[in-house]
């Protein structure tokens, strides 16, 4: 039996956000950075650090998509109360581009994770089966086309044996 990948029991339960005192969480209090410009500066400063670049390259080489890293980075900052979620969303493409720039300058092969459908180039199994079925049908049609010729020949041979048939 196929195992379900939907872990709905891991999701927060309704009202869970109200179990802590209001403003007790970092993201419920005013953010440290309020503007996009300051957020850009904050991230660019962090990312220009050599240690960060080394760690990032290691993670990229492991095959983690850049889009996922960017999302995790900004979500972490939101959770720490550095900036709001809307600032994070605005800054995310810049983070992804910066990471790809670091990857390109280091000559690392990475997965951007920005493709619409990553499995687009993979040939679908159903398509292969469909094509095979079509080819089989074409073969059977060809065979059917060939068989009437033989019958026609037989008919012509048979027709020559009639009473009114021309003498050969």
């Amino acid at each position, binding site marked *: 039996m196929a195992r379900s*990948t939907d872990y709905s029991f891991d999701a927060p339960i309704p009202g869970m956000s109200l179990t802590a005192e209001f403003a007790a969480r970092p993201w419920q209090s005013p953010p440290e950075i309020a*503007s*996009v*410009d300051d957020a*850009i500066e904050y991230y660019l400063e962090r990312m220009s650090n050599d240690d960060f670049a080394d760690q990032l390259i290691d993670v990229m080489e492991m095959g983690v998509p850049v*889009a*996922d890293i*960017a*999302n995790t980075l900004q979500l972490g900052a939101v959770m720490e109360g550095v900036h709001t979620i809307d600032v994070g*969303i*605005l*800054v*995310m*493409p*810049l983070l*992804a*581009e*910066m990471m*790809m*720039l670091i990857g*390109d*300058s280091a000559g690392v092969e990475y997965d951007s*994770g*920005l493709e*619409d459908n*990553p499995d687009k180039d993979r040939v679908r199994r159903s398509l292969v089966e469909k094509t095979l079925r079509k080819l089989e049908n074409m073969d059977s049609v060809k065979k059917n086309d060939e068989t009437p010729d033989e019958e026609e020949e037989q008919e012509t041979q048979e027709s020559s044996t009639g009473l009114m048939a021309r003498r050969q």
Partner: protein
Amino acid sequence: MRTYNPVLSTYKTISKQVEEMSHVKEPKKTLGGLLSPRRVEEKKEKGMDSPAMRVTSHFKILRDKRNEINGS
């Protein structure tokens, strides 16, 4: 299964904006008086007062640098 990642849509939108920006030619600067409010108008025209456009301008710089490295 892949979960939804907001980077995909925002990245695409900003990439499109960058492409559009590269097609638009900048008008030649005309000399004006000292008291002319040209700079403010230029800023407004480019939409630089919106955070998204400011992100786009930063993005464009990084994209150009990447293109330079990749040689395209």
